[in-house]
């Protein structure tokens, strides 16, 4: 890998871009890190180097590239039980409430959007097994979707390396729900098979889905314009049950968007309810 070849203006563009999308500051002394992390993204998108990447990022409809860039630069942000608060809210308030409300139909459905390698939905699945054994006879539907076939494939395999399992996953869950495969850990079949994975592009019409009790749409809207954000949220509203719950990323809100949601406090984080 060559070093010191990074164009200063392109480097600055990437830093600003990542800060805007993720609120993460890149250390300006680590340009070699930026270069080495972006190299696979540049290659995967068939681009000719950083300047070319910056040019592609400036174009409209570059969400997939934008997502890959931000993810490459903020890899530590993808983790099991990422930002623990929504999971705590789910466990402590929302699920106990739903368990009461859904006594008759005995079904619960949760949807994880832009699921990436599946950490979010697998975290939910493990939490259900761990804290709600009474759900065993219920019909529990866990759906995870992403825009990329490749990502879905990786998520379905449920194989995680040491770095990934070290992030956010309590050891007692690691040894209970995973088995070692060489240096990696594979999620056990009962968790893996509890999840359905599908390809969904948020900016296209959604496939026909039954309505959900809980939707996770975290750190996805940041990649879209206000108009597209609104469109997506309106579609999500339709995919939710009227008394359902929507989680956005910790730094995301519906402020300044004309959408049919109302913010509520759920423990230490916010949850959005259909209006």
């Amino acid at each position, binding site marked *: 890998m060559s070093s010191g070849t990074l164009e200063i203006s392109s480097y600055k563009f990437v830093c600003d871009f990542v800060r805007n999308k993720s609120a993460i500051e890149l250390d300006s002394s680590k340009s070699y890190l930026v270069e*080495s992390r972006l190299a696979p993204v540049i290659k995967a998108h068939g681009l000719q180097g950083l300047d070319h990447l910056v040019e592609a990022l400036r174009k409209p409809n570059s969400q997939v590239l934008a997502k890959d860039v931000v993810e490459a630069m903020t890899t530590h942000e993808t983790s099991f039980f990422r930002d623990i608060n929504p999971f705590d809210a789910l466990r402590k308030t929302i699920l106990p409430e739903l368990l009461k409300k859904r006594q008759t139909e005995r079904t619960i459905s949760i949807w994880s959007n832009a699921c990436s390698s599946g950490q979010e939905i697998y975290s939910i699945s493990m939490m259900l097994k761990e804290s709600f054994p009474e759900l065993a006879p219920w019909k529990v539907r866990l759906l995870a979707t992403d825009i990329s076939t490749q990502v879905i494939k990786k998520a379905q395999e449920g194989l995680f*390396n040491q770095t990934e399992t*070290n992030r956010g996953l309590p050891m007692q869950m690691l040894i209970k729900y995973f088995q070692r495969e060489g240096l990696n850990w594979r999620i056990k079949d009962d968790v893996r098979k509890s999840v359905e994975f599908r390809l969904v592009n948020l900016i296209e019409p959604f496939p026909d889905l039954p309505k959900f009790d809980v939707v996770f749409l975290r750190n996805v809207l940041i990649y879209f314009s206000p108009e597209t954000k609104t469109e997506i949220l309106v579609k999500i509203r339709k995919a939710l049950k009227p008394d359902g719950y929507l989680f956005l990323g910790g730094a995301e809100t519906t402020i300044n968007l004309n959408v049919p949601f109302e913010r509520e406090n759920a423990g230490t984080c916010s949850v959005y309810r259909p209006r």
Partner: protein
Amino acid sequence: MLNTEDIQTISNTVCRDMLGLEFESGEADGTRMLSMVACIAISGDYRAVVEVAMTPKAANEVTTAMCGLEPGEVQESDVADSIGEIVNIIGGNIKGAIPGETKLSLPCVSLNADESQENSSPEKRQVFFRLAGEPFAVTLIPG
């Protein structure tokens, strides 16, 4: 058991996640003395010695990253401590990837090692890296 690629993966993970430093692949460089050495023993169902060896400059790099020090503030005891901890973490991760009951020793460190006593076991697994341009080797010696 573990191949060189596994050793490479473990070493890379430790360095990146713990120190925020990026390892580049390197190759054996006979002209440079890797005089800073730390090793740790795995015993039990599987027996091996794990060793990290590097130049003083690479050791300095590890130490500043680990202790959050400025380059001028580094003392010898900090270097010994830091490279000992690196071999401890790499050794622990190797131990974890090996089936069976094993134990990890405490690390031992030499800041003035003589490479002429190099082990030539045929089962030796050795990986070379460059850390900030400086040579750095991780070796697993079973037996």
